[in-house]
C-alpha cells in the first residue's frame, strides 16, 4: 500500500527531473562556455603546455610593446576589439594526433601563433587555440568540428587529411566559420562538389593546380608519352584525374593506366606491366607506403624510365621505406619543401621550437603559413569580421612584402585554392633536392576572379 504511494511519488519526481534536464539549455551562457574552454584546454592538450606558457609569459613580458602595437593599429581602427575574452582571438584546431601529418600541422600552426603573438597578435589580440584530435577518422572529425564550432572560434585551422576535411567542412560551412586546411584533394575546393562552400581555404596546392606546372616542366624535359600509376583512393584518383587533363592539354600522350589498391604490398605485376610499355616516363600517384614498395620493386625489375610524381614520391618517409638507393632519380613537384634553401631560417626556428618532431615537412610549413594568412586578411579587413573574411580572401594576393610570415607570395582564387611559386625535387643519393623552381600560373582570372 505505502509502496505504491512511494512509487507514484517517485514517478512524479523522475518526470520533474527529466523535464528540467531536458529543458536546460547548454552552451548558451558565455561564461559557462568560456570556463569549459579554458579548463579543457588545460586538461586536454598536455603536450601543448610549454608553448602555451611561453606565449603567456611572452605576452606579459612584451606588454608594453604590445600596447604600442595596438595603439598604432587602434589609431586606424578604434572599433577593433578582440572577439574573445582576455583580449584574445580564439581559433579551433582539429588535427590528426595519431598521424605525422596532423602532428606536423599542429606544430606548424603553433609556431605561427607564437610568432604572431610575439609580434603583437592580430589587431592587438593574442591568439588562443583549442586543439581537438580527430583520430584521422572522417566521422569523428565531423563531430569534432561541430563541437569546435560551438566555441565560436574566429577560424578553424585543419584538418590535413582530405578524407576528413571533405566530411567536416560541411560543419564549418554550416556554422559560417572560415576553415584553413592542409588537404590537397581537388574535390575540396570544387564548387560543384562542395555545395558552394565559401568558407574553405587551402594552404597549399590542390592536386589540380599543381598539375599544369609539373606537366609544363615535363614537356620541357622532353617527355612525350607517359604511363600513369596511381592508388585507388581520394588522393590518388583525384590527383590522377587532374594530371590526366593536364597531360592532354600539354599534348603528352598517355600510355598505360594502372590502378593499385591502397596499401597493396605486391606491385610486381604492375611494375612488369609498366616495364613492357613504350612510354618515356612513368607518373606515380602513391602515398608513402606504396611508394616505398614501388621504388624497391622497380629496382628489382630494373626499368630505366624516369619516375615523376606527387610529393610522396620523393618524401623522406618513402625513401626510408624503399630499399637503399632505389629511390634515386625520382622527381616530383612540391608546393612547399622544408629543405628548400629559402626556408633555412624558418626551419632552424621550427626545430628549436619543436625539437621532438624529426620529420619536418610541408605540413609544418602549411600550418605556419595558414596562421599568417588569417592575420593578413584580418588586418586588411581591420576587424574580426568572419562574414567578410571569405570575400576578402577570395582572389586576394599576399606577397612577402605585405606579410613576411607567408614565406612565399601566394594568391587565392575564388574557390579557396592557392597558387604560388613551387619546386621540382629530385632524389639524389637518398636525399630530396630542389632542382628547379616553378613560377606561379597567374591565371586567377580563369578561376572565377
Amino acid at each position, binding site marked *: 500500500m505505502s509502496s505504491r504511494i512511494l*512509487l507514484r511519488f517517485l514517478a512524479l519526481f523522475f518526470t520533474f*527531473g527529466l*523535464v*528540467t534536464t531536458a529543458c536546460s539549455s547548454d552552451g548558451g551562457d558565455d561564461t559557462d562556455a568560456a570556463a569549459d574552454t579554458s579548463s579543457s584546454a588545460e586538461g586536454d592538450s598536455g603536450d601543448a603546455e610549454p608553448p602555451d606558457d611561453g606565449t603567456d609569459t611572452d605576452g606579459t613580458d612584451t606588454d608594453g610593446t604590445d600596447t604600442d602595437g595596438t595603439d598604432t593599429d587602434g589609431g586606424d581602427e578604434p572599433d577593433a576589439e578582440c572577439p574573445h575574452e582576455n583580449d584574445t582571438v580564439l581559433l579551433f584546431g582539429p588535427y590528426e594526433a595519431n598521424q605525422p601529418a596532423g602532428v606536423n600541422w599542429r606544430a606548424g600552426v603553433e609556431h605561427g601563433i607564437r610568432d604572431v603573438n610575439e609580434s603583437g597578435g592580430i589587431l592587438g589580440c593574442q591568439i588562443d587555440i583549442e586543439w581537438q584530435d580527430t583520430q584521422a577518422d572522417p566521422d569523428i572529425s565531423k*563531430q569534432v568540428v561541430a563541437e569546435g564550432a560551438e566555441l565560436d572560434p574566429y577560424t578553424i585551422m585543419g584538418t590535413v587529411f582530405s*578524407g576528413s576535411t*571533405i566530411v567536416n567542412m560541411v560543419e564549418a560551412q554550416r556554422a559560417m566559420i572560415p576553415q584553413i586546411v592542409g588537404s590537397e584533394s581537388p574535390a575540396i575546393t570544387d564548387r560543384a562538389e562542395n555545395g558552394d562552400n565559401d568558407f574553405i581555404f587551402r594552404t597549399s596546392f590542390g592536386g589540380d593546380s599543381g598539375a599544369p606546372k609539373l606537366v609544363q616542366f615535363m614537356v620541357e624535359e622532353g617527355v612525350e608519352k607517359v604511363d600513369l600509376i596511381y592508388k585507388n583512393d581520394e588522393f590518388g*584518383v583525384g590527383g590522377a584525374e587532374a594530371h590526366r587533363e593536364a597531360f592532354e592539354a600539354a599534348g603528352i600522350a598517355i600510355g598505360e593506366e594502372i590502378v593499385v589498391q591502397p596499401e597493396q604490398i605486391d606491385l610486381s605485376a604492375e611494375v612488369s606491366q609498366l616495364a613492357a610499355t613504350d612510354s618515356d616516363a612513368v607518373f606515380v600517384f602513391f602515398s608513402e607506403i606504396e611508394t616505398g614498395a614501388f621504388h624497391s620493386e622497380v629496382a628489382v625489375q630494373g626499368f630505366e624510365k624516369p619516375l615523376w610524381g606527387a610529393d610522396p614520391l620523393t618524401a623522406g618517409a618513402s625513401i626510408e621505406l624503399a630499399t637503399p638507393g632505389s629511390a634515386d632519380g625520382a622527381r616530383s613537384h612540391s608546393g612547399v619543401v622544408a629543405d628548400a634553401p629559402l626556408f633555412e631560417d624558418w626551419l632552424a626556428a621550427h626545430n628549436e621550437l619543436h625539437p621532438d618532431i624529426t620529420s619536418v615537412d610541408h605540413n609544418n610549413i602549411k600550418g605556419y603559413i595558414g596562421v599568417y594568412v588569417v592575420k593578413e586578411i584580418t588586418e586588411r579587413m581591420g576587424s574580426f569580421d568572419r562574414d567578410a573574411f571569405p570575400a576578402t580572401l577570395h582572389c586576394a594576393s599576399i606577397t612577402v612584402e605585405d606579410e613576411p610570415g607567408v614565406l612565399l607570395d601566394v594568391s587565392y582564387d575564388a574557390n579557396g585554392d592557392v597558387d604560388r611559386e613551387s619546386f621540382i625535387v629530385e632524389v639524389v643519393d637518398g636525399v630530396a633536392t630542389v632542382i628547379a623552381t616553378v613560377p606561379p600560373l597567374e591565371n586567377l582570372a580563369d578561376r572565377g576572379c
Partner: protein
Amino acid sequence: MAESVNVPQSKAADGSDALDQPDFENRRDKIAIVDRGRLSPSLIALVSMLGAAVAVMPVGRAGFDGVIGLWFLSVLLLVGVNVAVPLDTRNGQMVRWISTATFVAFMMLFPIGKSGATMTDFGLFAIFGAVVVGMNLTQGFAGQVSLAPAAFLGIGSYTSVLLDMGEEVTVAGVTVDLPDLPFLATIPIAIVVCMLLSVLIGFPALRVRGPWLAFVTLAFSLLVFLVLNNEDGLTRGSRGIRVLRNDFEIFGIDMLPTHNFYYAGLFYLFFSLTVVWWIVRSPWGRALKAIRDNSGRASSLGVDVRNYTLLGFAVGSGLAGGAGALYARQVEYIEPRSYFVNQTIDFFLATVAGGLGTLAGPLIGGSLITLVADYLRFTGDWYRVWFGLFVMVMMVVAPEGLAGSFNRFRAWVQKRVDS
C-alpha cells in the same frame, strides 16, 4: 570446432544433415540468456549511461550544474527501485513501465535547448544504435556472427542516396537512368535490398553449423568495399558522394536541421527496437531462443533452424540497411572507407559489450561507441585500447555484457533481500 571433440560425427559427405544434428552434450551457451526478451530493468542501466554522457559532455556542453545533479539523483533512485522491486509483482510491472517511459521521454525531450554538436552525436547514437539492435538480433537471438553490418550499412547508404539523386549510373558498361525517388521511399528499398542480399549469402552459408557465416560475411563485406571503391560509374569510387538532406519533409516539417533530423534517427531506433521486441515476444522469438539454447532439440521438434537463423540474419541486415539510408544524411558525405571492416568491429564490440540477447544491451553498446567514445576522445586512441581490453575481460568475467550484468546484479540483490 571444439564442441565436436567428443561428439559423434555426421558422416554425410555434403554435410547437409549437419545443421540439424543434435548436440549430445548438454550444451549451454556461455552467453547466458538473462533478459528473456522482456523490457528489462537494464534499460535503467542505459538511462544512467545516457545521464552520464549528458553530464560529462566535453567542450562547450553543460557543466555539472544543479539540474544535471537532479537528473543523476533521479537515475540513481530509478536504478535503486529497479534493483529492489521484484519484476514479477504488480509494482514491478509499474517500475518497468516507468523505466521505459522515462527512457523514451528522455530521448524525446533531450534535444530541447541542446546544441547542434550534441545532437549530431545523439543522432549518430540513434542510427548506430539501430544497427547494433539489428546485429543483436542476428548474434544475440539467432546465435550467428555476422561480420557484414558495416557492408549492409554501406549498401543501404548507397542504395538510398543513388535512388534519391536519380542520376545516370554505369555498371559494367551498361548505363541506367535511376529514378529520382523521395528520400522516405528509399528507406524501405534499402531495407529490402539488404534483406534479399543477406538471404542470398546466408542461405548457403547456414547449411552447416560453425563460424562459416562469420567468414562468408567477412569476405562479403570486403567484396562490397571493393565494389563501392572501384565501380566509379555507380558509386563515384573513393571520391565519395556529397549527400544533401534536401527533400526530407514530414507533415510539412523540414527534417534538415540537426535537431529535427535527430528525431528521424530516433524514430528509426524505436522502429528497430519494436521490430526486434515483436519478433522476440512472438512465437518466432521462442523458436530463436530454443535454437540458441539447443539447436538439435529444436530441430527435432519441427523448428526449422536454418530458416529461423536466416530470417534473424536477414532482419538484422535489413535494419542495418535502413540505418545506412539515414546515416548517409547524418554525415552528409558517403565514401567506401566508412563501411570498411573496422566499422563492423566497432558494431560487433558494441553488441557484445552492451549485452547479447537483451533489448537494452544494444542501446548501451551503441552509446559506448558514440556518446562515451565522444566523451573519451581526449584520450586520443587510448580508449580503443581499453575498449579491446574491456571486451576481453568481459567475455571472461561477464559474458552476458553490461545489460546482463545489471540483471544478474539485480537478481543477486533480490536473492539477498529474500533470504
